[in-house]
């Protein structure tokens, strides 16, 4: 009987299922040599990280590269992850900085000022009206300045709290709230909301 059970028990003991609820356990497992645990973290956050990069960079190819870079840096620097910190804050922070580096390189390359006000764009009204509501809103977000796009993405689209956004962006919480307020004001103007 024991001989019959042995192979199945061995399969169970070697099967790697990472169903840990908290990210900290997955980080600990990855640090203990079970690299596949990091794969579970990738599954949890790749979409959110990609969206943050996409909204910040406004370019899907650049966003894809930035998301890859963020996860690569996180994997290589997993030992520097502070126990007790939130993995989501950490990975978003790495991704945001990767995006900032890319934007800075672009700015240096193009030598152009990034406007602090929303980009009016060429004939927006005619274009935007043809799109459905979600696409209109996304198009409007894309026309906001970078700092506003990022806070809107993190607060509204990803549901982060002010405190976490402030930590990721390395900004005071008051500044995050101000950015959100101004971002919404500009969005209203862009989509022609009278509220």
């Amino acid at each position, binding site marked *: 009987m024991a001989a019959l059970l042995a192979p199945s028990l061995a399969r169970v003991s070697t099967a790697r299922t990472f169903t840990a609820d908290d990210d900290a356990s997955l980080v600990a497992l990855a640090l203990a040599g079970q690299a596949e645990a990091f794969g579970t973290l990738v599954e949890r956050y*790749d979409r*959110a990280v990609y969206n943050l990069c996409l909204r910040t960079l406004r370019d899907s190819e650049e966003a894809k590269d930035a998301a890859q870079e963020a996860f*690569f840096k996180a994997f290589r620097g997993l030992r520097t992850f502070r126990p007790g910190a939130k993995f989501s804050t950490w990975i978003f922070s790495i991704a945001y900085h990767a995006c900032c580096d890319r934007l800075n390189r672009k700015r240096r390359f193009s030598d152009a000022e990034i406007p602090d006000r929303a980009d009016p764009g060429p004939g927006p009204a005619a274009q935007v009206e043809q799109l459905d509501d*979600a696409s209109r*809103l*996304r198009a409007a977000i894309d026309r906001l300045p970078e700092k506003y796009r990022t806070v809107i993405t993190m607060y509204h*689209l990803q549901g982060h709290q002010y405190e976490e956004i402030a930590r990721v962006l390395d900004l005071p919480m008051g500044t995050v709230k101000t950015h959100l307020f101004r971002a919404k004001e500009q969005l209203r103007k862009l989509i022609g909301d009278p509220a």
Partner: protein
Amino acid sequence: MEQYDDIDRALFALPLEAPPQGLRDSILAITVRAPQPERVNAGVFEVAGAGVALALLAWLTLNIVVNPAFAAAINRVLGMFEQALTNPVMLVSLALGFSAVFIVSMLPLEPVRVRVRAGRS
């Protein structure tokens, strides 16, 4: 309590965009599935030996720093070695010994196979 207006509600309802095909695979390929650098596998004896050597070194250093009598004893032992190594008779003896070892190691000596005959009954 947060007050949400229409723009907030519209933004909250906006779904995240799907990442491009293959993003997850490409991330996994450069992280989890990337070949890991080979680890140096030290045996138990090597690790234990290195540990003992380090412990001995630490013990010696501590004693030399803390205990002047110990330092003096070490100095005496080192002095004896120095005296021995500066003694011409000792140096000649050492040279002869090493030469003998070297010469013997260079001799083409083959192990001799001894045939064991089965005893006749």
